[in-house]
Every structure is written in structure tokens, then in C-alpha cells.
């Protein structure tokens, strides 16, 4: 039997539903005249598992799992890692430093753009964003431990 994309997707939803159901143990379901905090989540989990099983049952019409193209996976992973690093350092380094580094590293590490172009673009762009959001729109931007 060919493993199809809907087999994998359906199984993932069923598994996710089971895990969330296990995490919902302490939430009271209540009864119909006095529904508890767990009623809605448990009903929804039940539906999710049901639809996940339906997806698996009708999976034969979906494309083979092996046919899904993952050639953009490395791009996606690099973007996620760089953005996660920016999120982790945002409150420490502040807006100007974090955003300049975020744009600069995206351009250098992923797009292989020339160093000086990338640096100028990153600094210029962050400066404009800082002025628009921080000064013109008066949105309080993070200053970080360096004070800017």
C-alpha cells in the first residue's frame, strides 16, 4: 500500500487529539445542565479525532506522501532558526540591534547578498521602521539592555 499524504496528515491529527485529550484529564466535563470547563475542549477533540480518521479513510485520492516536494525545507528551516534567534534576543538587545541583525543575517546567510549592500539595507530599513513605528506612530519599541 502506498503511503499517502492524507494518511500522514490524518494520523498526525488523531495523535494530536489523543495527546491533548490526555492533557485534559483534570478539566471537568460537568453535565448537560451544568457544563464544565472540559466540555467544549473534549467535544472538539472528539470531532478532531473523528475527522482525522475520516481523512485516513479517504486517503486513497490524495497524493503519495513521497510526492510532496520539500525542496524549500532548508530555506524554511534557516528562516525559522534566524527568526527564533531574533525573538530570543529581542528583549535583551532591543529593537534597533535585533532587527538590524535579523535583516542582515537573512540577507547574508540565506540570500548570499553582498556584505556592504546587506549591511546598508539592514541599517537603513531598521532606521526607517524605528522612525515610523517609534517616532511617528509613538509605538513603544524595546530598548534592551544597551539603552537604545
Amino acid at each position, binding site marked *: 500500500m502506498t503511503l499517502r*499524504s*492524507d494518511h500522514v*496528515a490524518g494520523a498526525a*491529527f488523531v495523535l494530536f487529539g489523543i495527546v*491533548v485529550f490526555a*492533557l*485534559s484529564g483534570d*478539566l*471537568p466535563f460537568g*453535565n*448537560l*445542565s*451544568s*457544563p*464544565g*470547563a*472540559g*466540555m*467544549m*475542549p473534549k467535544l*472538539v477533540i472528539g*470531532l*478532531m479525532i473523528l*475527522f*482525522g480518521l*475520516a*481523512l485516513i479513510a*479517504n486517503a486513497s485520492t*490524495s497524493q503519495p506522501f513521497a510526492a*510532496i516536494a*520539500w525542496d*524549500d525545507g532548508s*530555506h*524554511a528551516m534557516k*528562516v*525559522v532558526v534566524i*527568526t*527564533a534567534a*531574533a*525573538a530570543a534576543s*529581542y*528583549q535583551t538587545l532591543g529593537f534597533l540591534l535585533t*532587527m538590524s541583525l*535579523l*535583516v542582515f543575517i*537573512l*540577507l547574508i546567510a*540565506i*540570500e548570499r*547578498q553582498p556584505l556592504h549592500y546587506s549591511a546598508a*539595507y539592514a541599517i537603513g*530599513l*531598521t532606521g526607517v*521602521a524605528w522612525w515610523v*513605528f517609534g517616532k511617528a*506612530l*509613538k*509605538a*513603544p*519599541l524595546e530598548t534592551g539592555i544597551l539603552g537604545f
Partner: protein
Amino acid sequence: MGTTLDSLLLGFSVALQPAVLWYAFLGCLVGTLVGVLPGIGPLAGISILLPITFGLNATNAIVMLAGIYYGSQYGGSTTSILLRIPGEASSVMTCIDGNAMARKGRAGAALCIAAVGSFIAGTFGVIMLTLIAPPLATIALKFGPPEYTALLALGLIFLAYMSTSSLTRTLLMASLGLLLGCIGIDPLSGHFRYSFDIPELGDGIGIVPVAVGLFGLGEILSTPSHQVKGEVIRPKLRELWPNREEWRQSAMPIARGTVLGFLIGIIPGSAHIISSFLSYAVEKKVSKHPEEFGHGAVAGVAGPESANNAASTGAFVPMLALGIPTGPVTAVLIAALLVHGVPPGPSLVNDHPNVFWGFVASMYVGNLVLLAMNLPLVGLFVNLLRIPYAYLYPLIIMFCVIGVYEVNHSIVDVWIMLIMGVVGYALKKFGFDPAPLVLGLVIAPIFEMSLRQSLIMSDGNWLIFLQRPIALTLMIVCGVLLALSVKSMFSQRDWREKMAAETKE
């Protein structure tokens, strides 16, 4: 009618104030840019820019955000016609014949027909909104928890029936959204649900990080810059005016697309996308020369462009009159109104007439602004399309982070956005449409509250949904739609497949 006219005059007295005009113009301009640039849809655009409106009053904020929404429908056509890349999903059909017209040297005419069609459709939509929303809101004032439960259930079932993906997939996405909407403190019992001792999760998951992650970051993750290539066709200004024959060929498609789009717009689902597909299929079916479709048929541009604009305006009817989102964009707009302390719904017309009528009147103005702005500035938008995507997406990521963080000044929201970006990427790989997830997330608290209140009211008797006339009617419609949905699951080809086949042929 007289009352409506008086109220509309009040609306114009608000909408024509310089500050409101300025924000309408700004929203239309930003919306056009959002629509023109591939990779930022209206939802991501509105979500990212939501924090900017926090310093504004409710009227200015909603006028600007709505301008972004319908402006993006205008802007999307420019990219489709000149680059053959849909600036946003509802412009997919315009790519086919719009770009074919451009390659025949009729780019200007295609842009003009798209803009005029959008203007007519948008204006018709606003007139209908003016007439329908207030009486609908009066009826909705009679709604209690059972009616709201039935209405929201109907919304979800409509969404599943009308969605561009299969019934099972749509319901799975809606379930996931409803589950995410259950995170946080239970408002009736005070129980913490799935908050894992993270204080920020006590308030639940916000719609902005989820929407920006799924639609903004998710799109960027699945679009490496080397895949974004396209030759931009630059139209000459003197070629912008269509000839007599092109006007003649576009008149009826614009009329049909307008009515069709508005009717689909008020129904939950990805209305602006579905309406453009459906309009294209209708135009091809009624055309005396269906063989011209795909090779630069004027009707293939006029119909879908009018339909998607009318649908965006139609979506405001249930949003404003009932407080119910028909799609993720209206869900974010509802969130924006709530941030400003203005709950949308039946009481909006009476409690905040300045906001309601000012907003409606600003849409008349906004449509004029868009028509006046889009054609003369087409050269500017063409130049924007020449910015390499490699330099564009770091800017979008930066805006995503700023936009999400600034809503609550919470880094947890940025992490949620990142997780949702990865989820959005995975969903795209497996062919899921994330729009129902966002809709489920938004309606989850209202749905749960009204369901539990209904059960408490009836002492646990489920029949309460069948004992009240409005709830019963809504439940009957639910049943009919469910039966049709189940029937389409077992039939050889459901309406989506038929429509896809007709547009492909």
C-alpha cells in the same frame, strides 16, 4: 428609508472629516501595496498593521483597516495582470486572462477594466450594506444564546460547504481553531485550560500571532526567493482606456460578478476567493466564445475582479450586523473593534452610530479614492514589483515580529507566531487551507459561551435549539447543508471539483 438616509448623512459628516479621509486614503494606499506585493495577503497586512491603529480612535482605526482590506483586492489585480503572479489568492483567476491581455498589448485596458469593475462592485456592495445591515441588526437583537449557538454552528457548516478544500479538511481545520480558542481561563468556572503555567496563555491565544504566523510567515517559509521570478509588463499611460468593444464586453460580466460576489460575500467561507472562481466559471459558461478564455477574454478579467470586490464588501454585513466573522479578515477586524472597546453586532448601529455610519460612508469615499489612485499610480506599483523578493521578505519578517509583539508587548506572542508559521508551512504542504482555523479560533469563545448558556437555560435539554423559531430555522438550514455536504462526499465530483474543472478547461 428616510432614517437610513439621515443616518448615512451622519456617516458622511464623520467620513468627510479630514482625519477620517486621511486614514481612509492611507488604508487604501497601504492595502493596494499589500495587494500588489506577492507574499503579503490582506490578512497578514491587516494583522501586522493592527498595532499601528491602537493610538487612533475606533472610527479612524476601522476605516483604515477596512481600506487595507478592499484596497488589497484592487492591488492584487495589478500583479496578476502585469506579472502573472496573484498578489493575493482572490486574484488567481485574473492572472489567466489579465496577463494574456497584457501580452497582447492591452495591459492598460485590463487594469482599467479591473479597476472600474472593482469600483462598481465595491460601490454596489456598500449600497447593499447600507440597506441590509441595519434591519438585520434589528432582527439580531432578538437573538438569545440558543439563536447565537445555532447561527455560529450554521456559520461553521456554511464554511465547510463553501470552502475551497474538502469538507473533512475544512472541518478538521475549524476543530483545530476551536481547540486553540479553548486555551486560557474558562470564563464561567475560572479553570486554567492548557496554559502550562505560562501566564500569557491565561488570556488565551490571540488572533494576530496566529494569523500573521499562518498567512505571513508561513507564506515566506514556503517561498524561497529563487522561485519568485517574473517579467513585469509596463503599461503605457495612454493605453489605459479600453476601446468601445472592450467596454461592451465587460459590462455584463461586471454586473453579474457584482451581484454574485456580494451574495457569496455574506456567506461564511473564503468568499472573495470562491466568488472570483465562480464568476470566472459563470462567464465562461454564458460566453458565446468560451474558447477565448485563457487567451485574453475581457470577461475573464471583468467578472472575477468585480466579484472579489463585491464579496469583500458583502463580508461586512454579518460582521457589522451580527458580530460574526465570515472569514479570517473580518475576524481580525472584529478583534480590532474589540480592542477599541466597540463590540460589533446588533447593538453597534444604536450604541455607536458614528462608528457604524462613519465606516459605511468612508467605504463610498474609499472606493472613489481607489479608482482615482490605482490607475494614475500604476507606474509606481510597477516599480515596486521590481524590488527583488530576496530584499522584500526580510522586511516582511521584521514587520511580522514588530506587529505581533506590539499588540501585547509579549514575546510569547512572537513565539506563537513562529510556531504558527511552521504549522502554516506544513499545512500548505499537505494541502490544507488555514482560513477555517483562524475562524474557529475567533468564534470559539462566543460559541462555547452561548452553547453552555443555552444548556444552563434549558436545564440540559438539547431540544432548546428546536423550540425557538429563529434557532429552529437556522438548525433546519444547518441540517440541509450538512445533508448536501455529505451527499457531495459520496458523489463522483462535488461542486468544487466541477468548478475547478470548468475553469481549467
